[in-house]
C-alpha cells in the first residue's frame, strides 16, 4: 500500500490552472522522480503536498491518513519534509547549528512540548541534539565544515547542509526540489548519487523534482511526467525517456 497518495489534487492561480486533478501514489522506501517541462507545476505540487499552499480541491493521503491542509510543521512531525529549490538556510548560523535546528525532538506533552523542552538549556542546543546533528553532517560528508557559518559555504555544500537538515527531521518521506541543480558533474556523481542511494537503503522514501535526466535515470525507480498541471505518464525512467512524444514535450524539439 502506498506511502503518499494524492487524489484529484487541483490548484489554480487567478485563471491559470497550475495543477489539474493530479492523482499519483508513491511506494515505500524508494526514489521517485517528478519531471516535466518548465511551468508544468511541479513545484506547486510540492507546495500542495507539504501544506505551503492550500489545494482548491482534492486530497493528500500520507500513510492512508488525510493530511490535506495540514500546516507544514505538523506534516514534519508526521514524517514528511521538503527542501527548497533555491536553498534556504539560516545564514548567520554555523552549518551544524542549521542541522541541529532541524533535529527532531522527542514530542511528548503535545504541541507545546517543542517550546517547553526548548527552555531547558541555557546555551542553545543540548548535548544529544548536537550529537545527532553531527551524525547527519557526517552522513552528508561535511564533517570538516560543520563549524563554518553557512553564508561562507559553497552552493553545493549549502545544498548538502539543507539535505542534512531534511534528514535531521527524521521524516519518512523527503521531497527534494531539484537536488542536482547548480551542482557540477563531479560533485553530482561523487556525493549526490551515493547519498541518495544511501538514504533509500536507510529506508527513507525520496520524491524529487528534477531536470537532470542523468540523475533521474541513475536513481529513480519510478518517474511521473507532468505537463500543464496534469499527469501525462508514469513508469520507469527507461520507458519515459524512450517515449518520443514525451521527449518532444520535454525538450521542446
Amino acid at each position, binding site marked *: 500500500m502506498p506511502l503518499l497518495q494524492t487524489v484529484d489534487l487541483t490548484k489554480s*492561480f487567478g485563471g491559470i490552472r497550475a495543477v489539474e486533478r493530479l492523482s499519483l501514489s508513491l511506494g515505500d522506501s524508494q526514489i521517485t522522480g517528478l519531471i516535466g517541462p518548465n511551468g508544468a507545476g511541479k*513545484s506547486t505540487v510540492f*507546495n500542495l503536498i507539504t501544506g*505551503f*499552499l492550500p489545494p482548491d480541491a482534492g486530497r493528500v493521503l500520507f500513510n492512508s491518513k488525510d493530511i490535506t491542509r495540514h500546516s507544514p510543521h505538523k506534516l514534519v512531525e508526521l514524517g514528511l519534509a521538503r527542501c527548497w529549490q533555491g536553498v534556504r538556510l539560516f545564514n548567520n548560523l554555523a552549518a551544524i547549528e542549521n542541522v541541529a535546528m532541524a533535529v527532531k525532538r522527542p514530542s511528548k506533552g503535545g504541541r507545546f512540548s517543542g517550546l517547553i523542552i526548548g527552555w531547558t538549556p541555557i546555551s542553545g542546543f543540548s548535548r544529544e541534539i548536537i550529537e545527532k546533528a553531527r551524525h547527519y553532517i557526517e552522513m552528508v560528508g561535511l564533517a570538516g565544515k560543520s563549524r563554518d557559518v553557512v553564508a561562507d559555504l559553497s552552493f553545493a555544500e549549502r545544498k548538502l547542509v539543507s539535505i542534512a537538515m531534511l534528514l535531521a527531521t527524521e521524516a519518512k518521506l523527503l521531497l527534494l526540489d531539484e537536488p542536482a541543480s547548480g551542482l557540477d558533474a563531479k560533485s553530482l556523481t561523487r556525493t549526490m548519487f551515493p547519498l541518495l542511494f544511501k538514504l533509500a537503503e536507510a529506508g527513507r522514501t525520496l520524491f524529487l523534482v528534477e531536470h537532470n535526466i542523468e540523475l533521474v535515470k541513475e536513481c529513480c525507480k519510478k518517474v511521473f511526467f507532468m505537463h500543464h498541471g496534469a499527469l501525462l505518464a508514469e513508469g520507469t525512467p527507461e520507458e519515459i525517456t524512450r517515449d518520443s512524444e514525451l521527449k518532444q514535450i520535454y525538450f521542446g524539439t
Partner: protein
Amino acid sequence: MTDLVLSLLFNGFVVGCRYLVAVLFFTLVQTSIEVIHIAYGGVIVLAGCAAFITIKLGLPIWLALLTAMLSGVVLSTVMELVIYRPLRRKQASNMIVMLVSLGMLYIIQSSADLILGGLTSRLRPEMALSFSLGPLVITDAAIWTMIGATVVSISLLFLLYGTSIGRSLRALSSNRQLARSAGIDVNRLALVVFSLSGIGAGLFVILEGLDLGIRAYMGFDIALISAFATIIGGFGSLSGAALAAVLIGMAKDTFPLYFATVWQQLLLYLCIFMFMLAKPRGFFGRKVWKAEL
C-alpha cells in the same frame, strides 16, 4: 439632519482631497524606490517655510507656490543624493532607511520651528471667500483644494501611462530584479521621483496654508496619514492610495454625526486598525507569499 450629513460629508471630502495630494507622491516614492519616505513630512514643512517667507516679503501667492515647489524639489533631491542613495549602496534594511528618514524629519521640523515659531502661520493676509450652496458652505480654499487634487491625479496618470519614465517606473514597481536586469537606472528614476514629490509637497503646503495654516510640527501627522493611506490602498497601488486618502478624510468627518467629536480620532484609528486586520493587503494590494513561493 440631512444638512448636517451633507456638510460633514463635503468638508470630509475636501480634507480627503488635501490628503490625496500628499499621499499620491508619498506612495509614488514608496512603490518605485521602496523607501518609506517619512521625511516627506519634513519636505512639506520646509516648503511651507519657503512659502511663508515669500508671503512675508509681500510677494503674491503664486510666487509663494513656486518657491515652495522649488525648495521642495531641492530638499528632496538633496535628501536622495545625501541620504537615500548611500544607504541603497550599503543595502541598509528598510527599517534603517525608515529611521534615518524619521531623524531627518526631526531635524527639519526643529529647524522649521526656528523660522515659524510655535505659531500657526496662514498664507494670506485676508479672510477666505466663502459662499453658501444650500446647506453647504464652500470656501475658495476648498475649491482650490479640489482643483489641485484633480490636477495632481490627472498629471500623475499621464506621467505613469503616457511617458517612457512612467513605463520604467511601473516596471520598477512591478518587478525590481527584472527591471534592473532590463537596464533601468534606479538612481536616475529616484531623482525624478523625488523631485516630483518635492513639487507635490509645494502644492500641498500651499493648499494647507490657504485653509488651515502652516505649523512647524505638521510634518509627522501628514507623513503618518500618507503611510496609512499607502497601506490601506495596498502597497504598490496609486489609485488605491488615492481612494484611501479620500476615504480617511471623509470617515474622519462622518464619525461626529453619531458620536461626540472627542471620539473622532479614536474611531478613525480604530477603523484603520480594523481594516488593516481584516484586509492587510489593502484595496488593490498584491499577495505577499506568492512572491516567495
